[in-house]
């Protein structure tokens, strides 16, 4: 599971001074559930997920992922997490098999275990045709499949997705959404950040709306709809963050 307690992250900026990217955020996500982190660009989604994946250290507060504290046992956290983001690219000069093998080795797996796992993932993701081709020649769909296989090589209990459909065509995005759903069905703890409302409606069991680094609303979809008196998720989001002016101001900043 994932549990964040008063998670805060500040950055120093020469021009703007101290910036609070994540401000006192607390939430929990259970195994077999998808927690959607919904927010506009710059709201703090990526920073929150990087904190959970131990790529960044919290300035204050704490988080426990798969039973390990992100600050005290970052390597153990990463050993139980699969992190997939639009910004996590592939090594273009390696083949898909080499890429996945490399991450298997870095996860401490044996050569035999890696081979068996690649065989399994290749079948599940239909990668047989391009498994031994270099990643720099891949289509977007092939790249995404390889990235998914890379995140799953060590069969992590927790999956963190940071806007994984960003810039993808409809079919590839649908495949990703379907894969995320599969992760939930397999009992994994899934956290999914996006600013696409339809994805939230399709996927998420729980939703946290983040704005200006703060978690401004949280609950299941029916709970949020009831609380803000709106059926349309976009309207719910706009009301939760304080109206259209607030969204515009946040985007301007």
């Amino acid at each position, binding site marked *: 599971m994932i549990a964040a307690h008063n998670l805060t992250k500040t950055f120093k900026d020469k021009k703007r001074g101290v910036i609070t990217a994540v401000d006192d955020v607390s939430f929990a996500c259970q195994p077999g559930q998808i927690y959607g982190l919904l927010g506009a660009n710059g709201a703090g989604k990526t920073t929150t997920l990087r904190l959970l994946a131990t790529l960044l250290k919290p300035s204050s507060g704490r988080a426990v992922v798969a039973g390990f504290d992100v600050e005290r046992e970052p390597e153990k956290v990463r050993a139980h997490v699969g992190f997939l983001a639009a910004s*996590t*690219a592939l090594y273009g000069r390696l083949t898909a098999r080499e890429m996945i093998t490399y991450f298997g080795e870095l996860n401490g797996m044996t050569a035999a275990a890696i081979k068996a796992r690649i065989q399994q993932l290749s079948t599940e993701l239909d990668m047989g045709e391009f498994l031994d081709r270099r990643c720099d020649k891949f289509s977007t769909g092939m790249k995404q499949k390889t990235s998914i296989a890379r995140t799953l090589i060590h069969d992590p209990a927790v999956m963190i997705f940071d806007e994984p459909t960003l810039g993808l065509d409809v079919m590839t995005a649908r495949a990703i959404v379907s894969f995320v759903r599969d992760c939930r069905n397999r009992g994994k703890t899934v956290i999914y950040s996006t600013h696409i409302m339809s994805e939230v409606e399709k996927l998420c069991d729980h939703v946290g709306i983040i704005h200006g680094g703060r978690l401004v609303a949280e609950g299941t979809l029916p709970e949020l709809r009831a609380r803000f008196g709106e059926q349309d998720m976009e309207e719910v989001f706009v009301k939760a963050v304080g109206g259209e002016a607030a969204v515009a101001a946040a985007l301007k900043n």
Partner: protein
Amino acid sequence: MHLRNILTVYLKELKDAVRDRRTLMSVIIIPTLVMPLMFFGVGKIMSGVMKKAADEVSAVAVIGGEDSPAVLAALKKAPKLKVVATPADWKQAISDKKIRAAVDIPPGFEAGLRAGAAPAVKVSYYKGELMSDRGAGNVEKFLLDLREQTVADRLAEHGLAKSLTRPFEFSRENVAPPEKVGGNMLGGFVPYLIIILCFTGAMYPAMDLTAGEKERGTMETLLCCPVPRIDLVLGKFLLVLTGSLSAMMLSLASMGISAAFAGLLFTHGAGGGKVAAGTLGLAKQSAAAMPMIDPMGLLGVLAMVFPVAVLFSALIFTVSLFAKSYKEAQSYVAPMIFLVIMPAVVGMLPGIDLNARLALVPILNLSLVCKEMLSGIWHWDYIGIIFGSSCVYAAIALALAVKMFNREDVIFRA
């Protein structure tokens, strides 16, 4: 720190690097080809130019000399000179390379000689222009011969022996073995070359593995794995060091082989189990012996250069890590090459010798100690200080690289 992780990262980076044409160019192809090109390309052109200059019959103009027909006749017969009609603007003709030099014979030159006066002949030429230098040299040789002949004739006239003006002879003999000569001649050049190649060999891999990875988005992917960051840094750093050492070793090997072949081609028989080496034009000029380098000196240089290669690799790695893109990294790293070249050039200068203070100046100390070792001088106290200080500098640079890799504001610099 886990050796298995470091090795995994290193082997992956090695595989990645050998598939990258730009890395292969900077680490293997350029360092290997630059020496043969220097020896057989530029060297051959240089030696061709020198040969042409040496063989050329210089066109010279004579100013005056109408009342000195014997001198004029002798000039016209001189083997390396061709007396041409004197142009109106003979100075311009020298500048335009139409003639190589001009000889100004003063009025009454021959009469003056007979009267025992000491008339002055002036040779005009274009300083710094190879052919004009040669032409003036040929004229001067003619005049020296003429002067000697005049002295000999006068001595004979008075029934005096030639030894009156040449009471004794002397000659010069070299007692330095060829490798010491080579060490002195190449002692400055070889360390300079090694230092530069160590730096340039590390440049591309360091930038590619740091800023390049950030730009391509693979750095974040790599940071997701459950490996301590120090293992990632060390694995990557080892690949940068491999690039640095490979460029240097390949270039040295290529230089040795090229020089040996150049020696065989140009001098008929250099080598003999020693590593022969020569710089531009040297091969042609030294007809009897190619300058050679003591293999022990070369081994000493390689041992001394190792911590400096570590220092360069770690420093370029750290600086490139700050950059968001490969292009930005280039703009940071390129100026660093001047900081490396300056002390290396100072080390090449004659008269700058190693002392306790200079032994602590990075790069310069290496350049100076290598010059000594290649000349067969082994100051063990300085060697100890330099090796020790270089190791300390290298360790500090590597620690800095690890520290920087752990800094969020560096890795995720936006």
